[in-house]
């Protein structure tokens, strides 16, 4: 018998979403990525836009409040909504 270790993932809907028309990360902006206390946001190399990479949100809002173009929306995580 050969048991093989497997990892699986749990899906979740990211509570932080970004309006690609407004996001200027492709112009060099990293404000939302910088200010997130939990370091959950990143720039997607394919689109050049910011996105939520890890769903560990404290719904604290710096990403939305500090975004210079108002491109970031924070929803209350589903488990708390």
């Amino acid at each position, binding site marked *: 018998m050969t048991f093989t270790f497997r990892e699986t993932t749990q899906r979740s809907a990211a509570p932080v979403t970004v309006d690609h028309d407004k996001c200027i990360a492709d112009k060099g902006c990293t404000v939302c990525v910088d200010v*997130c206390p939990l370091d959950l946001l990143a720039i997607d190399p394919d689109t050049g836009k910011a996105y939520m990479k890890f769903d560990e949100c404290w719904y604290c809002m710096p990403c939305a409040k500090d975004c210079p173009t108002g491109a970031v929306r924070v929803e209350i995580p589903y488990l708390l909504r």
Partner: protein
Amino acid sequence: MNDALVSEYDLVVVGGGTAGPMAAIKAKERNPALRVLLLDKAHVKRSGAISMGMDGLNNAVIPGHATPEQYTKEITIANDGIVNQAAVYAYARNSFATIEQLDRWGVRFERDETGDYAVKKVHHMGAYVLPMPEGHDVKKVLYRQLKRARVAITNRIVATRLLQGDDGAISGVMGFDCRTAAFHVIRAKAVVLACGAAGRLGLPASGYLMGTYENPTNAGDGYAMAYHAGAELANLECFQINPLIKDYNGPACAYVTGPLGGFTANSRGQRFIECDYWSGQMMWEFWQELQGGNGPVFLKLDHLAEETIQTIETILHSNERPSRGEFHAGRGTDYRRDMVEMHISEIGFCSGHSASGVWVNERAETSVQGLYSAGDMAAVPHNYMLGAFTYGWFAGENAADYIAGRSLAAIDGAQVEREQARVFAPLLRENGLAPSQVEYKLRRFVNDYLQPPKVTRKMEIGLERFDAIRDDLEQLHATSAHELMRAAEVSVIRDCAEMAARASLFRTESRWGLYHYRVDHPQRNDADWFCHAHLKKDDAGRMTSFKRAVEPYIVPIDSQERSAYDRLRVAGAEQPVPA
């Protein structure tokens, strides 16, 4: 020391939230020649408990409204007498100087029509609450001052252990970058720990790991670092448990709404506590109401005038936890017609709110040479934001004086290599347990076995479970630098869980209302337990608890005042007694 990035400073401040920036600025003011580094796990611009600002000062001691003696008396009574009054009094005497400093820097406080600070009464005895309706910009103000003071800043470094020289004195700090996993060795002549509360100890009732009352970045890192360096921790069994908005888990803010007419009510809309100031006794009455036939508990605003409600919405939905408005909207809660359902928080350590912290004296010195601490993690009871600023100030100035004439200690390569191996193991494993799963199970055990009412046998079983989790740490697998940060945090949370259990088992009495209610020792026992209970790592590496006498009072408490906080229940709002 393979691949470690080594840097040198005179002083390193770990934690860029509230106390940390003040410590760094005051150290530079004391001696501008010092090389001061402010190290943050997040980004100093938006880190810590006040990342989105704060809606008021909870403990302002302002001439004409309160005196340092009166405040010291109030906190002594609110904390059932177990305080080092010298530490509380030192805060109280400097409280106003800190307010004036923040005011000069541009933090705005509410003033009345005469230009005087608009102090409100929320505590049981004195008036110490000063609103900050524009308190959302506190972090911006601090950041500007950090730049002006030329404090060096490094963000996104997870500090994991302190470095110590041959004599035991602190000689630096180690950690890793949560994006690149680069290992940092930062040499220093002294370190200030200002890492905030242990806010990820209990699991919120929602079951959501990051749905904590505290900023979840504050996982207890400072408590664990101080413990492993041999520092004494004080009265950890005096847990932080707060009355919060159910599920949202942010403060309902009776401090803000109280002076405007809002109050904590039972399901019949009746007031059942005389005073909304957070104390162990207040939480006891809150818990009784939740358990009894009059629960659940609510924040009641529906009787207030429209313009008052608009004022409350403006303050509560723009400072501290601004997503609150969206939460209420999502559930159709309108303060005009609905009371806001409340619940009690998960347990944590936080001296800012209760008394559980790393022991410090009135100079912000810990029991380890060259190690200072301030803010939520430093044991000055009920210290809140203003106490964090004030003790940050003390820590910065006293550390600057201590450093004078000292040189950097040699680095012990073995210490560094051990820590590198420990920290990086989850990244080097090919497979294993996910940090989030281990954290979930650990924190569920914290709830199952440590949440008051505390039961001796349950806490003993809890210790067995925490030992088992220690073995699980050896199987953690991290797939990225980010997950390595979560793995490091699980280890910190496990240390805090063991400290919480052992500290609670040691004090065989009940004290501080719900914070340390032991079912099998239900009475307060002043004969044996009118003392501090300290915890530390002994020379053999074991977690050990011991008593420390309460220091002689500076401000005497007469016997009638002593029980003021025991009488919080409103007359006529007694709980129904079972037949």
